[in-house]
């Protein structure tokens, strides 16, 4: 019981630090791609700490409610991940956070927030089934939704589920808010919707959302690492390569419309999943 509690607190504290570093590295690498020097590695932490020191300004108190619910759901989902719990349930808990982010944005009457919120919903609509299919694919291979069963499996899942890994890549790109799928809001200062879904969140609440996003980043990268769960070096290399690829894709592609996103992601995602699952059932 005590060890469980320590583990829970450890990952609630440690995961955002990891997420912040990942975000810092991301910003530096992106800057180098654009032949800039880029911010210091600790920049994401500076930003968030500064946000917590700002005056509390809200459009509607529901934003505060939603921001807290978002971070709560995100942290619970990551704790469940570290407890090696049920993957499908983790996805549902993670979705709670995403929904509250949208509801909070919808509680402002600003058209920028509203449109951003709807785009965020469309993003959820695009990636949610894909994540479920990935998890189902894992179940078909290891015969369980529990993560510890995946860790006990004796060969890397990617050998059996290569296409599902690509499907996860689509979900990852949307979840990390990378081009071409950064419709609702993006990390860069070039959003046509001001700041989309985040427009009316400010100060400490924006800081909470930023931290919640770090939790989610670690969660989806954790999902990636499950594809090479036999040893941690393999998992680390897989995640690192995937993330670098994400950054490259982010930098070489333009933002697309939601119509394209929904059609393309569903078509590719479903086709690849079905092919992989059928193949899995045949061999």
């Amino acid at each position: 019981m005590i060890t469980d509690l320590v583990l829970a607190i450890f990952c609630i504290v440690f995961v955002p630090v990891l997420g912040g570093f990942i975000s810092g590295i991301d910003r530096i690498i992106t800057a180098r791609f654009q032949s800039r020097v880029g911010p210091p590695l600790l920049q994401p932490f500076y930003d968030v700490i500064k946000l917590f020191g700002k005056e509390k300004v809200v459009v509607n108190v529901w934003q505060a409610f939603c921001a807290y619910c978002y971070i709560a759901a995100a942290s619970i989902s990551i704790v469940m991940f570290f407890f090696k719990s049920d993957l499908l349930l983790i996805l549902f808990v993670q979705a709670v956070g995403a929904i509250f982010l949208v509801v909070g944005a919808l509680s402002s009457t600003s058209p920028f927030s509203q449109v951003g919120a709807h785009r965020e919903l469309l993003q959820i609509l695009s990636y949610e089934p894909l994540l479920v299919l990935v998890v189902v694919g894992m179940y078909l291979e290891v015969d369980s939704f529990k993560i510890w069963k995946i860790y006990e499996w004796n060969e890397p899942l990617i050998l059996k589920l290569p296409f599902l890994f690509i499907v996860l890549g689509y979900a990852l790109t949307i979840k990390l808010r990378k081009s071409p799928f950064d419709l609702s809001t993006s990390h860069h200062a070039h959003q046509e919707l001001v700041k989309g879904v985040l427009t009316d969140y400010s100060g400490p609440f924006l800081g909470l959302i930023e931290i919640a996003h770090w939790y989610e980043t670690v969660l989806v990268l954790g999902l990636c690492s499950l594809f090479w769960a036999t040893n941690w070096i393999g998992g680390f290399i897989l995640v690192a390569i995937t993330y670098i690829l994400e950054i490259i894709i982010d930098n070489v592609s333009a933002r697309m419309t939601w119509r394209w996103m929904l059609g393309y992601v569903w078509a590719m995602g479903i086709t690849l999943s079905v092919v992989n699952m059928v193949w899995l059932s045949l061999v």
Partner: protein
Amino acid sequence: MKELLVFILIVSPFMFAVLCSIIKSDKIRSFVVLAMGIILSVSSLLLITKVPFSFSPKSVFTIKVNHIIEVSDFLLLFLMLFFAFKYKSILIRIFVIFQMVFVSYFDFFLKQNHSDYPTIYCDHLSLIMVLIISIIGSLICFQAVPYMKEHEHHLNIHPAISKQRGFFFVMVLFLGAMNGLALSNDMMFFYFFFEVTTICSFLLIGHDQTEVAIKNSIRALWMNSLGGCAFIVAIVWIYSQIGTLDIQEIIRTYGNAKYYVLPLALICLAGFTKSAQFPFQSWLLGAMVAPTPVSALLHSSTMVKVGVYIVLRFSPVFKGIFLSQCVALCGAFAFLAGAALAVGQSNGKKVLAYSTISNLGLILACAGINTPAAHTAAILLIIFHAVTKALLFMCVGTIEQHIASRDIEDMRGLYAEMPITALITVMGVITMIMPPFGLLLGKWMAMEAAARNLLVILMVSLGSALTVMYWARWAGTLMSDPFAGKFKLESQPILTWIPLLSLCSLASVLSFLAPLVYTKMIVPDLNSNFIPFDIHRGIFENSYGQFPVVPLCLIAILGFGVAVWAVKSAASSRIVPPYLSGAQTAEPGTFTGPMNQLVKSEARNYYLSRIFGEKRLTTCINLAAGVWLILMVGGTL
């Protein structure tokens, strides 16, 4: 004792219904409805200690039960025929005469004096249905009292020509019929109550007697009569093969390869029409013209559950054969299609209707998957869907009477006007889509049970994402307004608050108690040695999955507390207008336009009608579903 309870549950509503139709005073009638509700709820709760039981009532008021049913069957069919001629509907005429022929053939030629078998049978599945009908149904009847008063006031109907007596007669009678349906173990009893619910639904949809209401009620009648036809054919066929009407006996013996499967497919077809599965969804959508308590009672929480109930009842018989696969696929398809159509709707009641179809589809899919885990999922979904959907319908009804619209766009910023109702509605939405609440528990079980079935899981995962979309959008819209200090709480009649608040708390408390519901109500019914889930410390666990209900509930309560504290503390922060490119004015939601005129900034929800529009999708979906159904019925030959 149990005979008395069953008598109260089935027969007393018929008596109360007659009382309702006689009493002219509104106040006394309300009192009768209240008394009936309390009596029904208490008796249904007392029934918990008695299950399982079965017996055969010989007579009611010294008349033989069998004779009552036989005579009433014909009366009912003649009543339908009367309506068929009154409204000049050829389809109803055909279906009713068809049923008459079969019923008379059965009663006069086929039926023999057979040995004794229990005509009343109550296991945990029936008990769950009875509890839903008696408790939720009564709550809806309570809410109907102030609702109908306001409704007639709104339509400028003079109290002297009030049609409330007829309305409550049918509503109360319906509760008795539903209880009878859930408890009967005789196919002919079942068929009789099935037809009673059909006619109740017809009368209530047409209650307002507007042109649309009449048209939609006729459609409901012919579609449900089609279901009745399928059912009576199935009865006659099964009887001619194994010579019994005992449902339990049929379930025990029929699953044998030497019998035809077609009657089972017909029973499923009857269930599909009753549950408004595609392509029969149009009657349920049309039913939304009825006063909202009707939609809440018949068309979301109880009557449409009859369809899934019979399929679930008979599912052990078709385990492992092609029909089971078909039911699973049809259900999953309805789940996806219903969700897709709901996304394209801005009419709140239609969203609820499509969402009902969609959820019933998921329950049918579970019945079709036909494993103990899937059955558990189906029963959990039935329970929680009934509670939450009844709550949401009542909320929409209350909102509609207040703002005179059922469009989601008109509910923008409702929190400022009706804070409590808006909060209850949001709570309803949350219990609909979020863990750790019961519906999501059911969906989780369904998905894990369906994971081996590629097509089913594909459709369920897509449908699930679409479901999230239309609910989240609605919840956000209700809260969408600049928050300025304290609001005045709205006032409503006490009979509106009681059902709303009790259903809201029921939805959340019952989720917390889900492990208890599972061990006490579902496990005893699975009648197999294989228990799908182990429960320890409030965690559902089996070899491939784990859902910590109680721990998650505790965390959710904690998180909710923190979030409420956050709202309290945020209320002290500076409130600024939303970002409008700096052009906002002192008037909320406006900006300075050309010529210094105030322009209202407007943003509407995305309904994606070019993709998920009703016009665009309905034909394709009906076609696809029709082909599925033909495959299902034809494939059993």
